[in-house]
């Protein structure tokens, strides 16, 4: 039996230990905010926080998640008003929105480690997250806006 915490709640899982965390979150817990995009860690749509680090949940097995603290978009802020979420609304970032949860989780992790990231640091941190609608320019602007608030 695997024990882990998801958004602060203790959970136990007795299924296949090789199952990726993404499908546990989505199909078992019904937390559908984290998205399936590629299944091999190339697009970032599934990004969650594992012990505070931005992590691709589609390639993180339940065995790897055992004993860890997992944070998803559903637990990022109880009112949905994390500085990154506020900035995303202020800059009107999303188009279709499908990748944005992953982008937001990635950006939130970035701002936890760097209060005022430079363009280059933003690009490096966000280059694993694909947005096919092409909202990158606004993502960069929103991270800067959020950085202003975080400090």
């Amino acid at each position, binding site marked *: 039996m695997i024990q882990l915490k998801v958004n602060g709640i203790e959970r136990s899982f007795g299924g296949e230990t090789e199952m990726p965390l993404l499908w546990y979150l989505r199909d078992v817990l019904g937390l559908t905010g984290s998205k399936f995009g590629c299944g091999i860690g190339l697009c970032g749509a599934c990004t969650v926080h594992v012990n505070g680090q931005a992590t691709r949940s589609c390639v993180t097995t339940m065995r790897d998640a055992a004993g860890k603290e997992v944070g998803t*978009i559903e637990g990022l802020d109880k009112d*949905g008003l994390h500085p990154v979420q506020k900035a995303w609304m202020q800059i009107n970032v999303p188009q*279709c929105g499908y990748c944005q949860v992953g982008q937001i989780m990635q950006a939130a992790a970035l701002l936890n480690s760097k209060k005022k990231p430079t363009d280059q640091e933003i690009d490096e941190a966000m280059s694993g997250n694909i947005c096919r609608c092409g909202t990158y320019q606004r993502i960069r602007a929103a991270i800067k806006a959020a950085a202003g608030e975080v400090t």
Partner: protein
Amino acid sequence: MSPIENVSRRRFLTGGIIAAGALVLGVRYYSRPSSGDKLPHDTNTDHATLHPSVYLGINPDGTVWIVASRSEMGTTSRTTLPLVVADELDADWKRVKIEQALGDSRYGDQNTDGSHSIRSFYDAMREAGATARSMLIQAAAKEWGVPATECETDLHVVVHRSTNRSAGYGELARAAAKFPVPKREDLKLKPKSAWRYVGKGQVSYDLEALVTGKAIYGMDARLDGMVYASVEHPPVLGGKVKSYDDKEALKVAGVRQTVPIDPFQQAPAFQPLGGIAVIADNTWAAFQGRKKLNIAWDNGPNETYNSEAYKNELRATSHNPCKVVRNIGDADAAFAKGGKVYEADYYVPLLAHASMEPMVALAQFQDGKATLWAPTQNPQAVQDIVSKELGISKEDVICHVTLLGGGFGRKSKPDYVAEAAVLSKRVGRPVKVVWTREDDIKFDYYNAVASMYMKAALGANGKPTAWLQRSVFPPIPSIFDVNAVYGDPSHLQQGWTDVPYDLPNLRIENGPAKAHVRIGWLRSVANIYHAFAVQCFTDELAHEAGRDPLDYLLDLIGKPRTIDFKGVEYPNYGASMDAYPWETGRLRHVTELVAEKSGWGKRKHGKGTGVGIAAHRSFLSYVATVVEVEVSDQGEVRIPRVDTVLDAGLVVNPEATRAQFEGAAVFGTSVVRSGEITATKGVIDQSNFQDYPVARITEVPYQTNVYIVESDAPPAGVGEPGVPPFVAAFCNAIFAATGKRVKDLPISKLGLS
């Protein structure tokens, strides 16, 4: 029942501003179902107290229900069209609730493609709002015993200024519902000066849901008791299962059963591809079970398809006379006179959509009815194909449209939804079909691979005396008729038959090509390869003539005029030529403006840097784009800046429009940098983002500046028109920076170092 009238050929209302597209079968007014009636597809809007239109209802608490009949895939049409209703109604946007329509022909066309949602439904939305407003005013006037002409509306209220009375929409709804629905010709629309929302715009109705993970996409649809399916499709189009062994698959924990799906009959259209489905308790188990299937395939005739050889075939075809689709003067006679003649071949490979949400659908077949939840651009096509596949009536197919995690044209084709329906019937439970990214890349309806041959003779000032162009590509109609090989007018019109140049001798041709994969619409469609060839060849000729590319482009566009398409099959995107003439003056204007905004000719460009320009009309909008690039000694390409100017007529939602053009530059970046799908022995070589890369934050334009021309012309498209001129301008900029011509896309094959 609801009267349906064809509004396609009318120009109406609003002093000639507006014209509807030819695709629209609009239902204007709809009598409310009598109490207790339940339509299979009805909505809260249908049951509202005041319900003068299928698109609108008002309840006594003041809630305004507005139906979004078009799909939301990121273009904000789900917000922008209701915004038009709200404006004409003088409604408070905060009291508007948007309901997503089910697939239902009473809403008119619902295929959210072709960048025509606003153009085709602007009038219907205005009428819906104006109708309700008129009835509310009449109700208030009667209540107050004053002439209706003395009453007007303010935000969500009717007012009678001279007696200082006002009444809210909610309190008037019941009384208003007793009045007859006014005739269209009696409707008074608001003057532009009184518009609240149109032209000012609004962020997405779903914005908060999008940033909190609460938004429900097809991938997120759930039903009690549902099972998950993953389908192993025939690797070659038209292939069939010869035999299969599922013993190992069934041993995978969570796998319940396997179900064979029949291959499609005749042409693929929107039928399921066939194959073997693995049904499981969760998505991952279905994926794992599928890997354990052992299937022997009969690949069929497309097994001979190889992209490399096919490219050569297309090119060879384009080097010989083809079918003439438009002709002015006598190009051959002009070529025969000699002088400087230039020829060039341009090539664009198959492109995949790669929307971030792979194909997915949830189906429940029960009591002879199929209910679906799907991220579809085309819910009525879902009704069609599911009714055919299951042998039930269209009315018994209920299609809920979820949000779409991108679409770009792929989700207009509901083969994946039909799969879910077929499986639910077979399994006897709700089934959610989830495609992997690999399925998405390998089983797309690709944008056509295309080869373009260009030839021009240059006169004394470098201007062409003759121009010939031939395109060859497998056409989209091949998915409906496998024998279709020529480009059809609706795709040849896309930047090919309508080359806007003022030249004495101009011949435009198209050659045949047989399809071996499914070909489909992808954002901007044929405009991508056509604009690439025409606008890059123009740049090439400017260079040969020793002229500035901007100056040369304007010279070729010529004086402002309306292009005469007499004798040419030119569908004009389904719009009338009267309402949407092809005006070269508007193309000139955006070109001149983008030159000014980008500082064309005024900024210095050092070694390895350069700018390129292109102009193109598509989906009835005029767009010109300047791209600036920097190419390092190692061949790495950066795009510091893009300027783009659009004239799309009346722009309802400028904020959303700017976002579309920012996104178009990114979409175009993927096309130029890395977009290429190839096949070997009929099997698609690519599978996921490692071999079909799409642009990342480090690769896209750092800054895209979007300028919208103020216009009272009728609204035109904004979702797609940004891509074609960007692609060409980017390639022209690479030449300016490096001296290397981009003729074969993508540039990953070019070697810029």
